[in-house]
């Protein structure tokens, strides 16, 4: 294989203790500099960030790291998983992120999460802001109105992968390139049974953050919210309403993008995220 054919992404496993459980977590990384931890959407995995991790405009300044939550991608569920129903909670999600960052000994990383990852970025800003250099919420809001019954995601007479992908297919913008649209959907087809539904327990039931985001100090930990105009799950209005309660937060509404900006339309996304990453590292001159 020629060197030119190799991507810069390197994948490894790390043992992470999460709420007393020994979890073997898969992560991919590329680049050097400020740690940038990327959180995938519900029911998906770290491959959503493959374009970002191959973007030299990012990796020349950031050590970009994307990990698979336990139960997702190449991270197994914790031992004993077969005996209970998976439900992601706010506490488990927060502790997973903090434990992963501690396991890699990351010094005040930037955390960027999408969808459930965006929601938890809000919670991190509220409860643990001092631990992070900056927080970025993609498709993030304190609450979103539900648009389907999640029980359809895990039942015997409907193929879980097919319905998960078909439901979220409408969250991809019509302008997104076909290859990236279908790679994004493929991940939803590959999720374990009930995992997307279990993630949405966090989203729908456990993490209604309306009225609970007081005290976010964006002077200490800058916060950015970016939402695609075609996201009807977390709408631009949801994000703007959330931002109205956070002094100092910066909002970008991304044109021709839906709920999965980094994977459905990486070119459009980089136009929006690079100025944010430049600002976080202190380059306000617009190097590009």
């Amino acid at each position, binding site marked *: 294989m020629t060197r030119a054919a190799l991507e810069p992404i390197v994948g490894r496993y790390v043992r992470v203790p999460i709420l007393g459980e020994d979890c073997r977590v898969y992560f991919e990384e590329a680049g050097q500099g400020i740690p940038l931890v990327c959180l995938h959407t519900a029911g998906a995995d770290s491959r959503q960030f493959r374009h970002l991790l191959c973007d030299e405009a990012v990796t020349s300044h950031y050590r970009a790291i994307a990990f698979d939550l336990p139960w997702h991608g190449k991270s197994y569920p914790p031992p004993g998983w077969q005996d209970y129903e998976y439900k992601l909670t706010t506490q488990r999600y927060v502790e997973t992120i903090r434990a992963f960052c501690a396991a890699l000994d990351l010094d005040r990383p930037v955390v960027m999460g999408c969808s459930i990852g965006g929601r938890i970025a809000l919670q991190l800003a509220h409860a643990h802001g001092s631990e992070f250099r900056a927080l970025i919420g993609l498709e993030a809001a304190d609450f979103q*109105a539900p648009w389907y019954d999640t029980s359809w995601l895990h039942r015997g007479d*409907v193929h879980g992968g097919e319905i998960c*992908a*078909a439901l979220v*297919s*409408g*969250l991809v913008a*019509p*302008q997104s390139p076909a290859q990236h649209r279908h790679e994004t959907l493929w991940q939803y087809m590959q999720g374990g049974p009930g995992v997307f539904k279990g993630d949405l327990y966090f989203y729908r039931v456990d993490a209604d953050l309306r009225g609970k985001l007081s005290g976010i100090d964006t002077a200490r930990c800058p916060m950015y919210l970016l939402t695609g105009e075609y996201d*009807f799950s977390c709408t631009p209005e949801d994000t703007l309403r959330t931002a109205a309660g956070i002094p100092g937060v910066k909002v970008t509404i991304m044109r021709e993008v839906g709920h999965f900006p980094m994977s459905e339309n990486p070119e459009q996304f980089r136009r929006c995220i690079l100025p944010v990453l430049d600002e976080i590292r202190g380059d306000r001159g617009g190097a590009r």
Partner: protein
Amino acid sequence: MHAADTISEAEQALCGRFQRAIPARANADPHLVWRGRSLRTDCLVQIGSTAFLLRIDAGSIRECLTRLPLLCSWAFAVRGSVEGWAALWQDPPPPGWHDLFALSKRGEMSFEGDLQPFLAHLQYFKDVLALPRQGDAR
């Protein structure tokens, strides 16, 4: 079904567009038919006040009836407003009007009846119901 002279020109135009696309374009796509190979159902699609009965067998749309038989049965119905279907079939559709569930969330579409065949073959139905968007300005 209402008489043609009682429905709006916009609704008539949308219904014509639907009929030019379905069933012909669906049945002409062998991969779409293959994806529906395990599907056999009768369903109702409603555009404004106009209802169509689709009879689907092994992914092929065998009939698209505009005059519904008396006392006909169907498994599920997809009912949308004239404004909703018109927006969905724009190319590209505007944000928030670009998907069946985007429309249902804003109250412009509803799903009724036994939804198992609909949701078990959701991408098939999304793709069938998007066919009128292709290459037809009216």
